[in-house]
């Protein structure tokens, strides 16, 4: 029988976040007002029902990626005794991050603040319904820069829809990390770690890259749908988790064959379908860019799946189902940062590269380096994300990102490649360091890992008192 939950541990969670954020808060308290004033001067941006319709659908699609998509993808790859615990990780993270994002995460990510951290003007979603009258918003959401010389970003959808769409990204990112520490992390530790990580790693990096005031955004780093923010970030955090927690009991000797690859295939399929919302939804509109994003997503994914499949067929003699679906996920990851910037030709190259390189990282690199990243969160998401982020700098097609203010858009080339490398490296470093610190904090509070006998018995019965089948 588990001892009842250590309640004060959880309530202590929000403190560090508040402390860390206070300076930002002080600096920028006046920003929202300024933004409002600026908005008032220009004609208020109009809502578009078609764009809103697509963003509502996209939000549903991205949520589908985590529950049940990722839950099944991961649960299908663990052993029988950990199936429910693995699904629970995705499900509980969905719930926890929803609350964290509502309370402070959204505000940290998407308000003006400074170049590193948003402000607290949307804490608890404060005033997010401010434009509502007669059942509709009177104007569309503007992602305010709040900074002189930096343009605001206008949308054609209500802020609630924008916030919800972004919430689904905030949900899936920490859920991806679970692949690295599957089969051995305590559930209480997971709750605490993910809360902290969401606030102090995910939200700030999202701010850097996607807020008009974020330093990476201003610098010109391209990341359409989250190659750095989501995948490199989650992947490197996974590697740190795998290293800090250590290998699974029996790693290398026991048969750790997947319990039910049929679940993994369903999961990968739902990830693929949901990713249309992820990438094409990142256009925040139902327009040609969304159409092109969907197109290149499909092509890169298929190319990567075939890349992995043929690489395995040639080197191992058989094309495995797990290989094909892993390749597809690698392709989805790699095209993510590029999806609003590249054309079909570039997407094939990105896909094949991702499929083959991730095949190598998940099957050879992992064994060479000897870490136990149970389900290849690092090998697929971090490596795939890096491939995609860098190749975005090569294949980016100007007209897709062109605007009135920047009529050339951001075409690929050496300059852009350098910017991409900066984005990749800073994400790697910040995420790795912070993940390590937060794991230490969590360890101090409740410990990270179940003990060896519990691990052998399986997390389902030990942590949750339930069993599958």
């Amino acid at each position, binding site marked *: 029988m588990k001892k009842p939950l250590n309640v004060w541990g959880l309530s202590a969670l929000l403190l560090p976040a508040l402390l860390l954020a206070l300076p930002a808060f002080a600096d920028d308290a006046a920003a929202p007002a300024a933004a409002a004033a600026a908005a008032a001067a220009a004609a208020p941006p109009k809502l578009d029902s078609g764009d809103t319709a697509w963003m509502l659908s996209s939000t549903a699609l991205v949520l589908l990626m985590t529950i049940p998509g990722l839950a099944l993808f991961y649960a299908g790859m663990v052993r029988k005794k950990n199936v429910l615990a693995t699904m629970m990780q995705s499900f509980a993270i969905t719930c926890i991050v929803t609350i964290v994002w509502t309370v402070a995460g959204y505000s940290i990510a998407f308000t003006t603040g400074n170049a590193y951290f948003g402000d607290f003007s949307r804490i608890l979603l404060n005033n997010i319904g401010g434009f509502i009258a007669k059942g509709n918003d009177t104007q569309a959401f503007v992602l305010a820069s709040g900074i002189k010389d930096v343009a605001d970003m206008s949308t054609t959808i209500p802020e609630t829809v924008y916030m919800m769409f972004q919430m689904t990204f905030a949900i899936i990112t920490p859920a991806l990390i679970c692949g690295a520490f599957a089969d051995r992390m305590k559930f209480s530790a997971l709750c605490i770690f993910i809360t902290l990580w969401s606030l102090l790693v995910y939200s700030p990096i999202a701010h850097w890259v996607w807020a008009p005031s974020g330093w990476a955004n201003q610098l010109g780093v391209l990341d359409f749908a989250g190659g750095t923010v989501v995948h490199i970030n989650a992947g490197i955090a996974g590697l740190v988790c795998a290293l800090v927690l250590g290998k699974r009991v029996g790693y290398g000797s026991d*048969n*750790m*064959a*997947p319990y039910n690859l049929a679940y993994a295939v369903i999961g990968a399929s739902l990830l693929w379908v949901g990713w249309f919302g992820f990438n094409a939804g990142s256009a925040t509109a139902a327009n040609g860019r969304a159409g092109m994003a969907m197109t290149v997503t499909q092509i890169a994914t298929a190319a990567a799946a075939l890349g992995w499949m043929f690489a*395995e067929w040639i080197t*191992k003699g*058989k094309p*495995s189902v*797990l*290989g094909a679906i*892993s390749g597809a996920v690698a392709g989805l990851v790699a095209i993510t940062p590029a999806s609003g910037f590249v054309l079909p030709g570039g997407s094939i190259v990105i896909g094949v590269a991702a499929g083959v390189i991730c*095949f190598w990282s*998940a*099957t*050879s690199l992992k*064994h060479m380096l000897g870490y136990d990243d149970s389900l*290849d969160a690092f090998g697929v998401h971090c490596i795939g994300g890096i491939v995609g982020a860098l190749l975005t700098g090569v294949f980016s097609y100007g007209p897709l990102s062109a605007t009135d203010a920047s009529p050339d858009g951001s075409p690929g080339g050496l300059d852009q490649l350098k910017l991409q490398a900066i984005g990749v490296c800073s994400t790697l470093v910040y995420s790795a360091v912070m993940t390590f610190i937060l794991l230490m904090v969590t360890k101090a509070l409740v410990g990270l890992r179940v003990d060896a006998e519990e691990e052998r018995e399986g997390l389902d019965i030990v942590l949750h008192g339930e069993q599958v089948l």
Partner: protein
Amino acid sequence: MKLIMAIIKPFKLDDVREALTPLGVQGLTVSEVKGFGRQKGQTEIYRGAEYHVSFLPKIKIEVVVPDDLTDQVIEAITKAAHTGKIGDGKIFVMDIERAQRIRTGELDSEAL
């Protein structure tokens, strides 16, 4: 009475059952088991890691028969389950001291 326990290849189950019926065998019990033996297992591949699966799916048949049927039953099973390929399985015979039918309480050969 004897308990005849046969380990066979799964797809041979129906053949064996059909071979026993004409001998007057009216009941038997079957379990799914995994066998380890001379037959080398399969190689499964997961994310490039090859696992050697040493245990292969087999079917275990347990059938209790009167002493005098033993030879015929063994012969019938051997014939029906035979493919000539490694892994065809084994037949083991044990002594049964007593048998009872739960429904009627009938005993021994009455109970089979």
